[in-house]
């Protein structure tokens, strides 16, 4: 049985490694492209959020390459994601596709139950093999996160941005192909060395720092956010993002207790003065991250989410107050299949101009001075 799974940024590197090591025949869907999205839109409900549409496109493209089974996660709400797999199965059945859908429902989001479900998929592997597969996938996740962080740091600082990007891409590729646990860190170290050897952008020694917050899929899948991170890096901005793959796995599968991985559990209480309850999805994390970024004295925050994302709409409403009280400019960007790259660049440029102007004019980050311009920005 050839199995596939939906894309989310570079997570495929770890997921495909995990499944292969468990002895499954894996079809990695082709990278998300215009065609993926077009296929997805054609068969998705009109007003469903963007990740659903890209997921569906991934499945269809992977099925064309011979995938017979789909691995997908579930959930128990209130975010729509929990019901994704059910609706996707209905649609694919309507299309007359024959496939097997394996839905990992983690009722209490704990690792043992997850492992049991994985074993129930009919994999005849020993617990030792499962353990080493997980170790390898975990190392790959960490490597991917480090490579992304390197890109955030170096892209605004080097002169040759394209070379920087291709070095990171090459690094990701070598991590994807690497099967040795011990070599992983060395691969990333090499990319780090190569990047620091690149010629610097002399005009941008002290780049603007912008925090990214929002819904995790749109944050991590460059195709869903129109390559926002690289776009910003090329504009000379250092991106800071505290949502990443190891953090997600740590917080959602291990309850945030892994010492070797980042966690948002300590950041979450920062949201409480503004949002007193969890709201599903990443709503509360978005508010907490934004407050955290403000306290770290970042220059601005961009909230990223798919259009009609319910938790993020709650967060967006609350962020108006956060930017006033914490004194940090926030811009909200919603993405759907109708967004155009040029419009996005224009909005980023305007936001950056405002931040530069603010830094130059005031020399400090006093909240009260610029409320007029901030107000307008959040309402685009």
């Amino acid at each position, binding site marked *: 049985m050839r199995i596939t799974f939906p894309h989310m940024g570079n997570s495929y590197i770890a997921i495909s490694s995990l499944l292969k090591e468990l002895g499954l025949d894996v079809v990695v869907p082709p990278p998300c492209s215009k065609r993926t999205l077009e296929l997805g839109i054609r068969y998705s*409900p*009109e*007003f*469903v*959020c963007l990740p659903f549409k890209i997921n569906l496109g991934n499945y269809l493209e992977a099925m064309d390459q011979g995938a017979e089974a789909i691995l997908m996660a*579930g959930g*128990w*709400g*209130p*975010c*729509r994601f*929990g*019901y994704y797999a*059910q*609706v996707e199965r*209905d*649609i694919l*059945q*309507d299309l007359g596709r024959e496939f097997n859908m394996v*839905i990992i*429902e983690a009722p209490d989001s704990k690792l043992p139950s997850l492992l049991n479900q994985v074993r129930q998929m009919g994999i005849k592997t020993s617990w030792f093999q499962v353990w080493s597969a997980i170790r390898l996938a975990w190392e790959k996740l960490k490597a991917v996160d480090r490579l992304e962080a390197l890109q955030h740091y170096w892209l605004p600082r080097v002169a040759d941005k394209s070379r920087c990007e291709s070095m990171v891409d090459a690094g990701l590729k070598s991590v994807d192909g690497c099967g040795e646990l011990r070599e992983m860190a060395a691969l990333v170290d090499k990319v780090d060395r190569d990047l620091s050897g690149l010629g610097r952008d002399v005009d941008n020694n002290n780049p603007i720092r912008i925090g990214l917050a929002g819904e995790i899929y749109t944050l991590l899948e460059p195709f869903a956010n129109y390559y926002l991170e690289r776009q910003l890096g090329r504009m000379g901005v250092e991106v800071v993002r505290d949502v990443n793959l190891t953090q997600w796995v740590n917080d959602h599968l291990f309850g945030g207790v892994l010492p070797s991985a980042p966690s948002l559990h300590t950041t979450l209480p920062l949201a409480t003065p*503004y*949002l*007193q*309850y*969890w*709201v*599903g*999805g990443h*709503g509360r994390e978005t508010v907490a991250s934004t407050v955290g970024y403000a306290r770290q004295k970042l220059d601005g925050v961009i909230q990223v989410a798919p*259009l*009609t*994302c*319910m*938790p993020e*709409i*709650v*967060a*967006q*409403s*609350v962020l*108006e*107050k*956060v930017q006033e009280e914490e004194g940090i400019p926030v811009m*909200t960007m*919603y993405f759907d299949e109708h967004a155009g790259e040029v419009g996005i660049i224009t909005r980023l440029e305007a936001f950056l101009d405002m931040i530069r102007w603010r830094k130059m004019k005031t020399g400090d980050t006093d909240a009260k001075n610029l409320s007029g311009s901030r107000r307008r920005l959040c*309402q685009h």
Partner: protein
Amino acid sequence: MRVGIPRGLFFYHLYPQWKTFFNYLDWEVATSPPTNKKMVEAGVMMAVSEACFPVKVLYGHILELAGREVDYIFMPRLVSIERRSYICPKFMGIPDMLRAQIQGLPPLIDLCIDVSRNEGDLYRELDRWSKKMGLKSGRVRKAWNDSTRATCELEAICRQGHTLGEGIGVWEGKPAAKRGTGDLTIGVLGHCYALNDRLISLGLFERLREMGAAAVTSEMLDPQLIEEAAARLPKRVFWTVGRTMVGTALLLDQNPGVDGMIYLTCFGCGPDSMMAKIIEHRVNKPFMLLTVDEHSGEAGVVTRLEAFCDMLRRKRRLELAHNLSPYGEFLYSH
């Protein structure tokens, strides 16, 4: 004490209970008037543009109440009104959204109603609130228990063939509206706050009545049967309203007396975007998805309703004559 209750969102389900609750505590209850254009405009200006229409309308109601002589505004944080189910993430954040965006708001009573795990959470929340307000917790608990009776009364009224909007009128002692009669019977699905607000639904029920179609809503059916029908799905739907809608649709689909179904949804509604597809995939009766928002024009909706009713009548006529499908498969793909 005078508490204002906005006529929005779950008002249509829970107003009788809330009113009984506050009356038991000897508080006076004021409601905002039925939605009007001015309130819609004020709400649309205040809320973020991505919020759904009913949330914007609620902002309008809150602004209306804020301008009146009320000591408090009752805006509970409705997380979950039954076990293992939620309503919508926006319901969980609404008190915070209002506080962040509206200045000079009277204090909100934001009771957190969350029975997703057990009833105990709710009573602890009531105790917390009574302590904050300086009320005896026993009295508040008793008031709450007493008030749940009102919801049962409302449900009993609606079971006789009233929509929730009409039901609340009857519950308050107003004469019952004339029952719709006609040659067609149409199942009407959707969130209660969209269907029963004339400005959101653009008078859907009245329009159908004028066109000679009687509307059947989920409140008029046996909740037990709805639940059983919804249980046929491979995975339990974790949205309270979403599950009711799927159950209602599956139940009506088996009812030979029902000619077709209309699902009224508001643009941007998360649960509806999924549930409509789930229903469409499973029902055989004519099904129309009607999406509205603050830009919808009444004429456009009327045209679609007329076309739908015409089609149902033609279908019936043709089916009497022969067995050809008069509409093909395109109706299902809205």
